């Protein structure tokens, strides 16, 4: 904690960064993002197991960018997102200073993104056993049961797009749902539209999702929509050996192997 604050202060005072993006105590037992621009505000910074929001999302926000170079408090899931963003040309070494926080809450300093990439090698992206079981349970259902499940689960969605806003990788300046030539996805939140939105979102995450769960955490009505992306992450691993973000090569959906296996094309 102190080492984090000290580092933050040092960075701000030295002018190395214009802002530190981290977590502070929120209302109730919640934590929330804080943007510290003035060294005296540094004490607001905290970090503990409750800090799950993926701060990498701010790296692509224009209003944050125009404030100058930030330092970002980043736990493993956030680090993954940063690497993916770097691969997608959204950030580079000069874009930010990373204040890494290890799972045992130690401060780790990284001088560049490839150091982060190396650090992450010990945490290769894989779906947790618990999640695997949940997915398995769904897969064991009959198609109709699954249909029932999803239509019921997605029915209450009212397209607030909090999931999109919370996802560091949903940074498109114009999302396909706002594209009306043609209107790919109905604007209104009716069953079909909801369904199409969530399928499309999952597909857009294919080979990119880092399973940070920000989307599900953000959903105001607790739709387990990260099950879809988890399913995809798992498929990506199974079908194409994808094992998470990389600075040089993670693009399973726009690359191929001539011997990709499939059992449904006649």
């Amino acid at each position, binding site marked *: 904690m102190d080492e984090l604050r000290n580092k933050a202060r040092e960075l701000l005072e030295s002018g190395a960064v214009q802002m530190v993006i981290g977590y502070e105590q929120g209302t109730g037992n919640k934590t929330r993002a804080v943007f510290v621009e003035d060294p005296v505000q540094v004490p607001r910074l905290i970090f503990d197991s409750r800090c799950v929001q993926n701060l990498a999302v701010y790296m692509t926000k224009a209003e944050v960018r125009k404030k100058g170079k930030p330092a970002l408090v980043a736990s493993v899931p956030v680090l993954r997102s940063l690497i993916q963003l770097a691969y997608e040309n959204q950030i580079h070494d000069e874009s930010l200073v990373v204040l890494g926080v290890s799972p045992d809450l130690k401060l780790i300093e990284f001088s560049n993104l490839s150091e982060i990439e190396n650090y992450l090698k010990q945490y290769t992206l894989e779906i947790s056993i618990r999640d695997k079981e949940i997915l398995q349970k*769904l*897969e064991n259902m009959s*198609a*109709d*049961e*699954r*249909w*029932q*499940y*999803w*239509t019921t689960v997605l029915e209450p969605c009212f397209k607030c797009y909090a999931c999109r806003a919370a996802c560091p990788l949903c940074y498109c300046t114009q999302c*396909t749902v706002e594209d*009306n*030539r*043609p*209107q*790919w996805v*109905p604007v*209104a939140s*009716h*069953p*079909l*539209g909801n*369904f*199409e939105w969530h*399928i*499309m979102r*999952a*597909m857009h995450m*294919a080979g990119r999702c880092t399973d940070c769960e920000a989307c599900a955490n953000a959903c105001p009505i607790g739709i387990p929509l990260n099950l*879809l992306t988890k*399913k*995809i992450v798992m*498929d*990506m691993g199974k*079908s*194409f050996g994808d094992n998470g973000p990389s600075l040089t090569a993670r693009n*399973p*959906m*726009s*690359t*191929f*192997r*001539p011997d*990709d296996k*499939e059992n*449904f*094309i*006649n």
Partner: protein
Amino acid sequence: MAEFEPKIVAFVCNWCTYAGADLTGTSRIKYATNVRIVRFPCTGRIDYMLLLKAFGEGADGIIVSGCHPNDCHYTSGNFHARRRWIVFRSLMDFMGIDVRRVHFSWVSAAEGAKWADVVNHAVANIRDLGPYDSYKKLAQNTEREISHG
């Protein structure tokens, strides 16, 4: 009451399957009338959103077909498509969409007879499955989008 006639949309590539279907014609091989072909330059161009749209608009079944691996006119469009289908099909299945209604195939420009088989097989199979009511129900009371006109 007449037998159920499924509505089937076929998304095919221009160079192999579309040409193959032309050959079915020139060789006067007969097949079921239920299929309407939509012509794409390449399977690589086929957008999975269009499959959803087809179901949303009341299709009972879908055929997706293009060049055999290594035969792509654009060398690799079908390889990219194949990956897309692997992921998308698995996701559809995971969400309970009836993947038995989506028939994928490779049909080359020389396989006129195969095209007829693909269609007849799909039609028979989807006729057995009956109309895709569950999806139609989902689509009900969905106001029509402005951009059709």
